[in-house]
């Protein structure tokens, strides 16, 4: 089933992307072509196949609970144009 441009636009907005008409048309073509290509999965019997997680057994490594402060938090703040004092200032969060 092909996705309509409304559906694709909805997905784009969910990803916080505003598309021009041209971009949207391209995206619709792209997605539908892509979903077509993925139909091939249906040819495979995947019922009893485990989803892949890592190429071989590896355990999640664990870190000791020890505080090591990052040496240069100033450099982090310096990279934002929204820093106000020691905070990051952002515009209105609630939608009208």
């Amino acid at each position: 089933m092909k996705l309509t441009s409304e559906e694709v636009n909805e997905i784009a907005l969910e990803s916080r992307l505003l598309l021009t008409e041209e971009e949207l048309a391209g995206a619709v073509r792209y997605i539908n072509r892509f979903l077509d290509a993925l139909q091939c999965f249906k040819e495979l019997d995947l019922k009893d196949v485990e989803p892949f997680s890592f190429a071989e057994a590896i355990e999640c490594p664990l870190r000791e609970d020890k505080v090591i402060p990052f040496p240069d938090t100033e450099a982090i703040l310096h990279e934002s144009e929204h820093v106000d004092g020691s905070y990051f200032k952002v515009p209105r969060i609630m939608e009208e």
Partner: protein
Amino acid sequence: MELYELNLWMLTEGLKAGKFSASEVFTSCKNRIDKCEGNIHALITRTDNEMPAFSKDGTLAGIPTIIKDNLCTKGLRTTAASKILGDWRPPYDATAWARLKDSGAVLMGKANMDEFAMGNTCGNSAFGPTHNPNDITRVPGGSSGGSAAAVSAGYVPFSLGSDTGGSIRQPASYCGVYGFKPTYGMVSRYGLISYGSSLDQIGPFARTIRDLQIVMSVISGHDKMDSSSFRNKPHDFTHNENASIKGKRIAVVKEFAGFTLDAPIADAMKRTLKILEDEGAIITEVSLPVVSKYAVACYYALAMSEAHTNLERYDGVRLGYTVKDARGIKEMFERVRSEGFGAEVKARIIAGTCLTEPTRCEEYYVAATKVRTLIAQEFSRAFGETDYILQPVTPSMPGKIGESDDDAMKGYEADLYTLPVNLAGLPGLSFFTGYAGNLPVGLQLIGARWSDSEILDAGMILERHFGSPKISDGGVN
């Protein structure tokens, strides 16, 4: 012979013997960059204004290098070739770069790439395309095109790139250098700006196998900052002149036999098999039915699913490109992301979001993770039957810059020979076999997980027959 023409191992020996100084090497490379960069545009940021201090007693003391611009460099602009990162200067170094630096390497610049490593032409960069130094009308390949071009043109003896679905091996082949994609987990990804985290791996470009071995010995090994980096795995890359492939099994993939290849590539396959046979290897065949038919779809489904979540962090609040006059947070996010990301990246974000929507997740994302299991199992079986697999890197020679296909999936299908390696977390070497006219022809050797050093040994034997690639003219003769 100019110093910039020397290979890495020659430079380290010459420097150690005092035949020339690090600053002479630096100047020679800098002059070479000055001469070629206008034609090639391999770099996003140059850092070769003056010779920096470097660690004098490391393996790479005084050796110039270039790294892909998706590797974080402390205090130095890192862009991933995207407008959205703006002039971001990371407050930390990527582990791979930190290891190079600690062993004395001197950074000459940050290499151009496809935006967020999404592409195979290096034409999808916010900073404009890189040109193939063998023929500047052609693409250098991607996404690590700048890193490959820089080594090919003699900017530096080695560089670093990253490979998610072929992004090291394909440009290495197009530019006529060696490119190595290590086993997933061999090189720390800490500080590598993620594309598809379960597929990404950092690796080197160089003009000899021995040089690749030197670089691998520096960058490989466990890193506690990367939970996917393996402990206690073999990573001895000592160069062994006497390595042999006598009695080793080398397979071609049965299902690939029917696929069309450009003549020089098909020819190179034949010649390489002959050489390997002459060296005493046993030529065989393996069957990879799932890989040949489903790997491309599986790869793109997973890469995009992971990519869209990796790219959610770019919202303009903490770093990079932003807008200051938005009236609401949603507007701010939308404008930052719409203005900051390029077209290909947006397309992949939307695709990734679409595949992981609750209504489609089972059908696409989860199915793809299962197909990936089948692919990994298939390779695992194959490597019970053979020691190496020989296959093309790409089916065709590098195309002209600006030639684009309207159907993105066709471009993706060109990655069939490289991306299965990432799906199974295998090591893969793109090696040089000679020239067809002025264009180099590369092929690929892959092996089981952790067979990295054996692959490089085999590559060295092939290098003996094919010769090392020449430095390309870089568009300036």
